[in-house]
């Protein structure tokens, strides 16, 4: 019977291996992999841009690139890394692993999932058309007005900035809604809110941050584009506008975004440290609460990016104190990880080494962040390399390092083959040393007064050797990352077969095959503890065969608090409509930039038709 059931489930869940099947698939595993691959391509592009800048800054009065090119490079580097790498790579993990972790067969809205993937890629394409069309954005990833107005930034660069970001906000918001509903609605029976893996909490917090903070970026970008091409005056002082409005809106989005690219990474660490220490995490409720509180407090700190614009003592005190509060919550998590290692029996796998490197860098990045939260010190260090060092310690330390820890931990599940441990450790040590050699000197450069965003510097100011050191470190770091990429391709061919649970881990994704079957689980599992695979309970116990659900693309909906079975959710099948809608939106935003309003209108009409096809109900029979 089992083989027949598996055959039937496979037919229902597998996308056909055709060109249409590739473009139409809504399978979260395929889309999650594509998210990860796209994000890594974006990482490499952004990395090459960074290395070109470091070459330009390696010596005084270097003339490798022009100042204009330098401006565009640092803007594209920042945008690529912060918007198109840091969040999408974490989304890739969430999209692949959330359904496996909750024992569901897909996310709640599989077609929305396909749509958010295509809009992510197309928004990146829209951004990278700009360098080939004459001018890339050149005002930094935060693009403070009024420099971005047409008066100072003619050309299409800043229009591309605004439009590609709006397209990206649509993608990110859609993805977040999908994850929230999946986590709150599709968890396996018994996985009550108090038994969820911590990764689900951090993903949930991140998704709510996206839903609440993204509109501020959308509004800011709409204002910018209207100001630039459609004659409004939001940021023009002469007509009653206010450039600080941009800063308020942007940083109200911008600071939560920092936690959006950080919290899911802490969730990954909270998953894999217990596995490699062979014991459950210490202080589960405290880790969960500090994750949620980081998210909530994250909305009350945005003004610390603007201490130098002039504001009342009261305002500065409030936002300074709020910023320092965050460090308490982060410390709680750090102490929980350290305590888990202390109480457990840690095994130093490559993944664990990346995780330990993350903790070290997070502590440094947190402490130098605390320094800049002190207002007078911030005035001194504002716009210097010190801030640059801080943000790279938190973004690389708390995003890239945990992502690699996650890759070494989870890739065996995705590809079915183990990565080479020895090469992984080499990759870690080269990256870790390279990173610190590259970025620690930037603290000193900042204190010595080297400003950010300058394309070169005169010699004799005491900046020469530190800059050279930084450049060398950056290249070593790049080599460290490349070693892991080589390791990945090597593992695809020569890796040892992973089997179901190579790490003897505790969470549900390790109960599936590696790589998981199209339908993932023959039976929707049930759960009675926080570490389902470490307890004595059989998750697949189902004497009446009632949790097979093979009468269609079905999965189980449960209550959000206790996860008791509630209803049977039918999930949609493959469709090209999400791709067509994404293409229509791409054309729409492109047409807005070049003022082809009739084309924009046509694109919207076509997009609406696609949306109707997308949601139009199919005639169903049987259970349904």
């Amino acid at each position: 019977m089992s083989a027949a059931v598996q055959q039937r489930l496979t037919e229902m869940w597998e996308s056909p291996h055709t060109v249409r099947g590739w473009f139409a698939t809504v399978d979260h595993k395929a889309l999650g992999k594509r998210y990860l691959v796209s994000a890594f391509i974006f990482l490499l592009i952004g990395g090459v841009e960074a290395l070109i800048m470091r070459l330009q800054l390696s010596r005084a009065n270097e003339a490798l690139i022009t100042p204009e090119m330098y401006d565009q490079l640092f803007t594209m580097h920042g945008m690529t890394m912060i918007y198109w790498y840091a969040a999408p790579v974490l989304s890739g993990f969430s999209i692949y692993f959330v359904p496996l972790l909750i024992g569901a067969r897909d996310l709640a809205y599989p077609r929305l999932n396909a749509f958010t993937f295509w809009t992510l890629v197309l928004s990146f394409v829209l951004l990278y058309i700009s360098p080939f069309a004459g001018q890339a954005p050149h005002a930094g990833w935060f693009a403070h007005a009024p420099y971005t107005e047409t008066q100072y930034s003619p050309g299409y660069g800043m229009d591309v900035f605004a439009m590609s970001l709006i397209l990206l906000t649509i993608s990110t918001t859609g993805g977040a809604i999908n994850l929230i509903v999946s986590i709150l609605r599709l968890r396996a029976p018994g996985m009550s809110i108090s038994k969820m893996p911590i990764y689900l909490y951090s993903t949930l917090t991140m998704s709510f941050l996206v839903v609440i903070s993204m509109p501020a970026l959308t509004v800011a970008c709409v204002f910018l584009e209207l100001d630039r091409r459609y004659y409004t005056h939001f940021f023009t002082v002469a007509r009653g506008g206010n450039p600080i409005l941009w800063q308020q809106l942007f940083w109200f989005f911008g600071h939560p975004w920092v936690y959006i690219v950080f919290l899911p990474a802490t969730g990954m660490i909270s998953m894999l440290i217990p596995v490699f220490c062979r014991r459950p995490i210490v202080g589960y409720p405290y880790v969960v609460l500090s994750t949620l509180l980081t998210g909530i407090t994250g909305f009350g700190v945005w003004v610390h990016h603007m201490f130098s614009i002039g504001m009342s003592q009261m305002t500065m005190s409030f936002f300074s104190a709020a910023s320092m509060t965050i460090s308490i919550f982060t410390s709680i998590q750090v102490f929980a990880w350290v305590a888990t290692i202390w109480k457990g029996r840690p095994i130093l796998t490559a993944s664990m080494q990346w995780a330990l490197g993350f903790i070290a860098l997070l502590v440094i990045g947190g402490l130098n962040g605390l320094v800049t939260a002190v207002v007078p010190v911030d005035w001194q260090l504002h716009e210097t390399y010190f801030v640059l060092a801080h943000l790279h310690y938190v973004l690389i330390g708390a995003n890239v390092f945990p992502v690699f820890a996650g890759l070494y931990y989870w890739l065996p599940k995705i590809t079915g083959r183990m990565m080479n441990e020895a090469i992984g450790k080499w990759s870690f040590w080269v990256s870790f040393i390279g990173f610190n050699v590259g970025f620690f000197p930037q603290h000193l450069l900042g204190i010595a007064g080297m400003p950010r965003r300058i394309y070169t510097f005169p010699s004799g100011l005491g900046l020469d050797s530190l800059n050279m050191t930084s450049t060398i470190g950056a290249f070593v770091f790049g080599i460290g990352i490349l070693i892991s990429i080589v390791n990945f391709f090597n593992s695809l061919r020569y890796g040892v077969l992973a089997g179901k649970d190579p790490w003897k881990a505790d969470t549900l994704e390790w109960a599936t095959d590696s790589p998981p079957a199209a339908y993932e689980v023959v039976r929707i599992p049930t759960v009675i503890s926080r570490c389902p695979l470490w307890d004595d309970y059989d998750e697949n116990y189902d004497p009446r065969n009632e949790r097979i659900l093979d009468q269609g693309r079905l999965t189980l909906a449960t209550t959000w608090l206790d996860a008791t079975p509630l209803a049977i959710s039918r999930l949609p099948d493959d469709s090209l409509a999400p791709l067509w809608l994404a293409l229509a939106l791409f054309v729409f935003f492109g047409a807005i930039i070049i003022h082809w309003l009739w084309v924009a209108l046509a694109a919207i009409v076509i997009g609406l038709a696609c949306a109707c096809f997308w949601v139009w109900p199919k005639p169903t029979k049987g259970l349904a």
Partner: protein
Amino acid sequence: MSTVSADIFNSPPIADLKPDDELGKYGIWLLITTEAFLFITLFFSYFYLANRTSRWQVEIPPPITLVLILLGILVLSSIVLHFFGEMQVKKEKYGGARAGIAATIVLGLLFLGLEGFGFSQSWLNITPATDSYGSIFYVIQFFHAAHVLAGLLMLIYVLFLPLGPTQRTPYRPLHTAALYWHFVDVVWVFVVFFLFILPHLD
């Protein structure tokens, strides 16, 4: 191994469970949340610009009659949609429900038409290109109008949707669209209050 029986979850047998018809509802609530923050951001911008600009102090408050009529139209449309649309579907009177949805759509179109007429009447020669007040004043209203249009398109979609009892979700798509429509109406209440009534109270 499995000494714990499956009914520890104290729930009805899986086979007795109904199809899940509420996934769409959660999605639309989250969409409404994010759009609510969109409008909160817009209103924040309005007050931020107002507080920091001396130009606004001398302005005459905007005319209020038309927007109150528009408010009446939207409130009426929400009532019609609820009592003559959703309630009728629950009573399985599908023909009546379709008429109710159609009436709502007519009211929505009337709203957009009258609002467009209002835009065409020049008021103190203020346009989006005049100054920051004109920009934010009109952009908030354009944003709202765009959302009314989106709500209308959802209702038109539902109007052509088979609503009968043979369909697996008899009234869920209507409920989903209706939630969004009520949200758009509530936003208009805030637009009227912040942009039109508050300046009169000064």
